């Protein structure tokens, strides 16, 4: 293989700007979708523990159906399938304001909300009942027990799986290129199309994703250690 590398294609011409804009779109898409996913995850995770059955059934249906179908199918469904059913005014507004971005964000958020829900539920369930009983025994009210004991422990338990789930969300945002959201992978492909430099373009995209993932994982590992309660929770639960 005698391939002549030409790394300058990454900053000459429009490529540099494309990469930066792609990175910006990836971060915006993932950030907004993450907020949706966390909100849906908390609501549905909590709903699955309430004593009223219809609520549990709705939440279980949401979690099982949405996390068991490929994200790509959801992207197509929300982008191609749903808008024709919306009222004309909403549809026009959407297509004037980047419908593919909003559909992609919604697909990503709703899909990962179902997965986040499982992370939150298993985090709460892994706290021993005795923690709550001990808190009440030393005179805390139920509210105080939750605020001072259960929630602080649950948050610490959830940090590692929630981090890896958030990184999955970030990596999965690349699937939005299929509905032509101009995120990082899309821009990488565009550079490849314009310059015919596949290896250089893919390397740039790969390095940026790796940097983001390794960076976030390192910061969160530090957070986990910084807030660990000595003797209570061994590393990694």
């Amino acid at each position: 293989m005698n391939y002549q590398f030409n790394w300058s294609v990454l900053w000459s011409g429009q490529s540099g700007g494309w990469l930066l804009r792609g990175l910006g779109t990836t971060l915006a898409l993932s950030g907004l979708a993450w907020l949706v996913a966390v909100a849906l995850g908390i609501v549905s995770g909590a709903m699955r523990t309430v004593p009223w059955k219809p609520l549990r059934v709705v939440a279980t249906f949401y979690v099982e159906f949405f996390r068991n179908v490929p994200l790509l199918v959801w992207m197509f469904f929300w982008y191609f399938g749903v808008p024709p059913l919306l009222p004309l005014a909403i549809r026009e507004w959407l297509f004037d304001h980047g419908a593919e971005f909003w559909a992609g964000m919604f697909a990503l958020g709703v899909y990962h909300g179902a997965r986040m829900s499982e992370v939150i539920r298993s985090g709460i369930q892994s706290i021993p009942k005795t923690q709550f009983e001990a808190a009440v025994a030393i005179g805390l009210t139920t509210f105080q027990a939750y605020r001072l004991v259960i929630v602080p422990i649950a948050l610490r338990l959830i940090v590692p799986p929630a981090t890896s789930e958030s990184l999955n969300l970030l990596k999965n945002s690349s699937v939005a290129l299929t509905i032509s959201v101009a995120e990082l992978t899309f821009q990488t492909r565009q550079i490849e199309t314009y310059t015919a430099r596949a290896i250089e373009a893919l390397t740039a995209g790969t390095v940026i994703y790796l940097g983001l993932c390794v960076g976030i994982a390192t910061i969160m590992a530090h957070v986990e250690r910084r807030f660990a309660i000595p003797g209570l929770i061994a590393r990694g639960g």
Partner: protein
Amino acid sequence: MLDLAVIVNNFTFLVVQGLLGLGGFTGGTLRLAIPAIVLGFVLGIFIGIARLARAWWISVPATLYVEFFRGVPLVMVIFWIWFIIPQLLRLPIPEYGVALTAFVIFEAAYFGEIVRAGIQSVPRGQVEAATALGLTRAQSMRYVVLPQAIRNMVPSLVTQMIVLFKDTSLASIIGYVDLTKAAQIVNNREIRPFELYLFIAVVYFIFTYSMSRIAGRFERRLA
């Protein structure tokens, strides 16, 4: 409203071609998913064991492999294989080969982590007892550690198999005619996106959900 005729009329194409891969195109979700799961798991066993090796020149590359592929989107890996292999081998590779290679390489990193965690979950005393009985390291791995480790791995393995099964939909990006691509092809002609994508969502769901139910029953029996 819901036009189910589009599903009925194209049912054969969607299921026979898209799901099973027995139509005129090379394709099929199952024809890609099953070999990808088997080969990915086999490569994953080697990677998981390599990560625990005493020699650094085995464990460090295995660790780098896992960390690299877990930090990169699968879509990116598919594009890498799609561009690199034809350049390296100087011959065109069919979409099936590209997709299968990408899935095996990518998912082996995740399977490797599961295998490593499974092996580490076997108490040290088991290995010591095996050594005391006179088994070699390879024998104790083969007869003592792995049988117990695989039992502990079952839940995460099934989760990963479901993830891989869903991920095969990404092969449609490079033109492989799986279930998702088949729905796209039908939709281009019929323009019924809501019905078609909801239908394939239900088909995927039936497979993934029954996989997790069967695994749950299997797990209870092993426990």
